[in-house]
Every structure is written in C-alpha cells, then in structure tokens.
C-alpha cells in the first residue's frame, strides 16, 4: 500500500484518484502511527516551506518520517514543496528542512530572465534525464510535466540529480538518493507521463 501523507496540503485527492484508476492500493494517511502500514510513502506539498515543515513537526509526522525513511529505509517520494523540504534549508523561510538530501532551496532570480512570464514557473516543461533510473521507465520525455513553483532545489551532490529542467536557469526537477525521491513537477497533473511515473514509484 502507498501511503499519501495528509498534513493539510492540497492535491492529495488527485494522487489518490490516479492510484485508484491504476488499481494500486493507496490510502490517505494523517497520523504518525498510520504511516507504519504503508510500504511506500508519498509526500505532497503545496504552499510555503515553513508552513509545510511546521505542519509536519506539530503533527508528529516529522519524527515518524525520520524513523521510517532514515532508519528503516522506507521509500518516499516528495512532490513540489514535498521535494523542496527534503533539502536542508530554504530561502523562503527559516525552519530547517528534513535535510535528507544535501542542498538548499532557492528562489528563481528573475533578474537573469530574458523572457516573460517570470514567476511562478507555471506550465508544461521538459525534463532532461541525468541518470537512468527505473522510475523513468516508459516516460515520453518530449511530453514533459506540469510545473507550478517559484523556488527550486539547488542540490549539492550532483549524483542526487535525476533530471534537469531549464527555466531561466538549469535546476533539478528530479532528485533521488537511495530510498528518497523528489520531483518538482506535479505528476498528478501531468497526464500520461505523470500516471506512468506514479505507477513506476509503486513498483521500484
């Protein structure tokens, strides 16, 4: 079973709808104890970095996640802000991130942009694979994925970067290290590519 972590962030039902259509067992989980039963975890995120972290901390989910992910090596996939909080810190706020991956979240510097629109980076963009990984099996890279964000994960370890995307600058649109995965785009809004990626996460 895939546990979709609910800590008051949006877009959760969209992910569950996809797993329902794929006949892959998935449940929305909101308490630390309930996470135990999930073989894989999905960490969505919409909103500000600090608000997201504070929700995870106050609900007790952060401590449980540290245990499951760091000690018991449960696979986890962070989406959008759920990817950003894998980092150690963010320019958007003051609360430390989960710190499972080395790096810092930065705001796009629109001073470097030569074309509008500026922020947020919203719409369909392509991803360039940096390292082959089964999570990308069957993905049509030309079709791209749907993005909505103003901050990006500046990964410190090049080896952690799964894919790069260009928007004013090159940024990590996908990261992975061991059992920890993160994507800046929204697979739940990315039509067949997104469905395939969520299906792959259930199998790897």
């Amino acid at each position, binding site marked *: 079973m895939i546990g979709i972590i609910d800590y008051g962030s*949006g877009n959760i*039902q*969209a992910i569950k*709808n*996809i797993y329902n259509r794929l006949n892959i067992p998935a449940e929305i989980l909101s308490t630390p104890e309930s996470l135990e039963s999930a073989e894989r975890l999905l960490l969505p995120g*919409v*909103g500000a970095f600090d608000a997201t972290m504070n929700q995870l901390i106050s609900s007790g989910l952060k401590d449980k996640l540290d245990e499951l992910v760091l000690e018991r090596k449960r696979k986890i996939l962070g989406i959008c802000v759920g990817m950003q909080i894998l980092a150690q810190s963010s320019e958007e706020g003051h609360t430390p991130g989960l710190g499972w991956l080395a790096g810092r979240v930065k705001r796009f510097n*629109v001073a470097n942009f030569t074309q*509008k*629109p*500026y*922020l*947020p*980076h*919203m*719409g*369909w*963009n*392509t991803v360039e694979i940096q390292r082959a990984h089964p999570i990308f099996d069957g993905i*049509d890279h*030309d*079709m*791209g994925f*749907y993005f*909505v964000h103003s901050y990006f994960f500046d990964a410190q370890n090049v080896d952690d970067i799964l894919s790069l995307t*260009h*928007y004013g600058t090159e940024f990590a649109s996908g990261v992975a290290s061991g059992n920890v995965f993160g994507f800046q785009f929204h697979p*739940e*809004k*990315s*039509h*067949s590519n*997104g*469905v395939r990626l969520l299906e792959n996460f259930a199998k790897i």
Partner: protein
Amino acid sequence: MLTKRIIPCLDIKDGRTVKGVNFVQLRDAGDPVELAKVYSDEGADELVFLDITATVDKRKTLTDLVTKVAKAINIPFTVGGGISTVEDVKVLLGAGADKISINSAAVKNPQIINEMALEFGSQCVVVAIDTRNVDGIDFVHTHGGRKPTLLRTQAWAKEVADRGAGEILLTSMDNDGTKSGFANEITAEISAALSIPVIASGGAGNMSHFKDVFTFGKADAALAASIFHFKEIPIPDLKAYLAKEGISMRIQ
C-alpha cells in the same frame, strides 16, 4: 523549455456543456466529463470550465461537476463563473479544481483578488477580463461583455496583476465569435507590460490565428471553444502545425 498552452473552454449550464458539441466518439455530447477526457487525451494543456448558470442555488451542481472532472482527468483545470467570495474558491479548490477565474466580482470589489491570492496563492487566481474597443479606447466590460465599465483595459490588467492575480484571461468581445483571429494588438500590449501569463481568448477561426497570437500577440496560452467542440481544428493537428511553425509545444 516552457511550452505555449492550448486551452479548450467548456461552457457549462446546469452541469451540462452548452453552445453545442459535435464529437462523434462521445456517447453523450453534453457531458462535460466525457468531453474533458477526450480533450485531455488529445493533448489539451489545460481546461477551463465556465459556469454560465452561476446562480446561487445551482452552485452545488458545479461543485459536483468539479469533483467528477478531477476524478476523470489529470491535467490542470480552471473553473469560473459567478465566483465572488473566498468561500466559493475554497469549495471549488477543495473539490479538485486547480485554479479559479473571477471576472465581474473583481471589478466590483478589486480587494477580493488580494484576499484570494493571499489565501490560496497567486497561481490559483485567474482574473478574466472582457474588453471591447469603444471609439479607439479599450474598456473593460462585465456580465459576459454586456455591461461597460469606466475601467481602461490596460490599467485594469496592471492593477489585477499588482493585486496578486496569477494569470489574465483576456477576451476580446470585438473578436469573440468572429473567427477572424485573436485581438493580437491589445494582447501583446498587455502581455509585454506584465510579468504574469496572458491567456488570449476570442476570435480563433483557423490554425494560423494561433500562431499569430503566440508571435505577434505575445500570448502565453490561447483559449477557444467552438472550433474545438465542432472538430473544425483537432488539437493534435493544431499542435503539430504550431510546433512545425517554431512555437514551443507539448506534443503527445
């Protein structure tokens, strides 16, 4: 590379698609969920649902529709029509809409744009502007373009962006329904003046009109209804044509 977006618009009345749809592969041409699924499978980048019933007692029908659409498709979609309060937005986003669009309510009470952007984020808030040129000056119109206001379109577009709108859906009432092409001049003027995306709407009649609005009109996205509903321009053909013409497109 960020692509330009093609957005079919579905007009909804009492939970059904209106203005006519002619899709042979649909069992029920009036069912917005079926139509949404066809468009999303054909490569539409987003969808807009415009509720033209927009009376209070019919709102529940729209919410139910949003829930059904969210279950059936997984591309972003916007819902508009009669939305005026933060509570309206909360209900529709909660049901699965990605963005909401406001029009008359924003003109009546511009502060609502700030409130919605603060509560849900700018990326959820599309401000629709209906514009008509009167003796050489562009004025904002409300109530489906019927009611003129004293607002100059360019100034209003800047104001809604400053107040936190994430996108502008600009419909030219002069061009709408004419099939003579989008209003490229005013679209370009507004798009160049602002740092948020502009969705051009009104006037699409052939594929080159889309090319024109992305080049001369500097639009970030183009919206159309009847030419898609009646299959005059199939989305895959349109996107293949635009890609060939050098416009950045997502091809599926």
